[in-house]
């Protein structure tokens, strides 16, 4: 008879939860071993603040307000959105390496690895967000809407970021290579990030662009952020439902995206043959 010295442990939590926790801690540990990546994710927000706040911002005049205060809630959203890019590249790299093959032969829950990726990406994004807020404060941005509203706003940004991370995971799983993932993810994030109210009021855009910019979910997030931080410079354009109800739109959209994309990612990940 076969002798076995190691027996499986018992757990009071479901194994799927334990596995997701193990995967998250693995990705966090990996993430912290890449100081260059962390450094880049912190440096980019600083560059954004300087570039858009001072280089371009100097020539952008907005009625009745300070441009840099107007800009900062937009840059927070921009940073969150661009953060999802690296998730797509990261998971595509994972899939092309042997590590995932080994995980697939282990008796772990099908969802553990992708959940670990998503949660760790969210957590690893927090230092960059903190640096971004400090930069914003340094250039004169002030949340004047109260602490509770400011907290709600950051909650919205992170929720939106979580949805974007899942979209990034989806792209990373579908892409044939990490370079492909970078391009496929890069183009939409670029368009969503710039054809929006992040930098300028869409009112001055040509009609067809204005429709896109107004209905862009990024604009809803940024509008919610400006209202909650007290950085708005006037009422949103009427007739655009998502801008009239920006908080509800952001929460609803994020939940719908996660509810649809996350299970799809789990299926795609666990498909046996690639």
């Amino acid at each position, binding site marked *: *008879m*076969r*002798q*076995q*010295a*190691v027996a*499986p*442990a018992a*757990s009071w939590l479901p*194994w799927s939860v*334990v*596995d997701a926790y*193990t995967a998250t801690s*693995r990705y966090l*540990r*990996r993430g912290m*071993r*890449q100081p260059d990546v962390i450094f880049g994710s912190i440096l980019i927000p600083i560059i954004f603040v300087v570039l858009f706040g001072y280089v371009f911002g100097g020539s952008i005049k907005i009625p009745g307000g300070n441009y840099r205060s107007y800009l900062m809630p937009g840059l927070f959203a921009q940073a969150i959105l661009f953060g999802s890019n690296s998730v797509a590249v990261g998971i595509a790299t994972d899939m092309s*390496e*042997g*590590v995932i*093959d*080994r*995980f*697939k*032969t*282990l*008796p*772990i829950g099908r969802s*553990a690895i992708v959940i670990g990726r998503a949660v760790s990406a969210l957590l690893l994004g927090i230092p960059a967000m903190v640096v971004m807020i400090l930069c914003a404060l340094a250039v004169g941005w002030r949340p004047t809407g109260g602490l509770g509203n400011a907290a709600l706003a950051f909650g919205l940004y992170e929720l939106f970021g979580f949805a974007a991370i899942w979209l990034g995971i989806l792209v990373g799983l579908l892409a044939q290579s990490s370079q492909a993932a970078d391009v496929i993810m890069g183009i939409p994030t670029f368009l969503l990030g710039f054809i929006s109210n992040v930098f300028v009021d869409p009112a001055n855009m040509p009609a067809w662009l204005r429709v896109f910019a107004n209905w862009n979910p990024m604009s809803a997030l940024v509008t919610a952020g400006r209202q909650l931080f007290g950085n708005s410079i006037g009422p949103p354009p009427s007739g655009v439902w998502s801008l009239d109800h920006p908080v509800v739109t952001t929460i609803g959209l994020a939940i719908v995206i996660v509810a649809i994309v996350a299970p799809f990612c789990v299926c795609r990940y666990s498909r*046996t*043959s690639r």
Partner: protein
Amino acid sequence: MTSAAISVERLARSFGQTHALVDVSFEVRSGSVCALLGRNGAGKTTAVRILTTLLSADSGRAQVAGFDVFSQADKVRARIGVTGQTATMDELLTGHENLEIIGRFCHLGAATSRRRADELLREFDLVDAKDRLVKKYSGGMRRRLDLAASLIAEPEVLFLDEPTTGLDPISRREMWTALRGLVARGTTVLLTTQYLDEADQLADTIVVIDRGLVVAQGTPEQLKASIGRPHVVVTLPDLDAAALERVRGLLGDQAEIHGLSVRTPASNGLATLSAVVTQLERMGLPIYEVGLEHPSLDEVFSTVTGHSDEAGMTAPATGKDG
């Protein structure tokens, strides 16, 4: 009640136009070692990936540890250890962290995972490197770590895709010793290899596959016996062309001269040998050695895989006569 730890029936798998597996059937007895032998592209890795639940098959059936690999993949995964052909260790983690995480994924719990990681690092001679990042490991160290990882939960069935490729001769011997130790504890092992001596040394049964088909299977001895008869080899002490010619004349049409030796098929085995010895004594030539030479696994391999080789890259079939 069958005692097969692995049973494969008519397995087939294609990638587009490439027929990686055409029709493969074999069984591995519980507690034995089976070597899957084949040239590059024969379909070894494809077979291992199907058996380890990484790949689906187009048709056929496969059971591992009593469970169907397609419909009961979770049950199979809880009972197997796998070392693939390519590295699967995380470069940004240390050797110890890699093993520990795999132990936790095998649901051993954190404490047991750490203990097993330490044990295996010791067993595979990686203690000094345990806290170094894997990206600083040498190729052979990675290979050993990968193997250690597949053993962390003491699996019932172990799959090793070319386990000793890239190891130095000493590490290779150590690996063989480790594998024999596992088998002594009852683990079933399916390994693929390009090294015939490895199959000969380790395997209880050998399955030779070529272009997705099983072309031969059996114990190493059966395979050798099935392919060629033994040869009588007569070796002279010095290079003496005339003497060699006389021996060749004695041994018949099929005898060939190789250096100091003359070889001829021994159609009746030992009986042929003793007849040859009697005749040589009568001739009174100085003889260094007379013996019976059995076909090597190399010859078996090139014979069974040579037939389907249109490009003619293998050596011509030996041990055959028309």
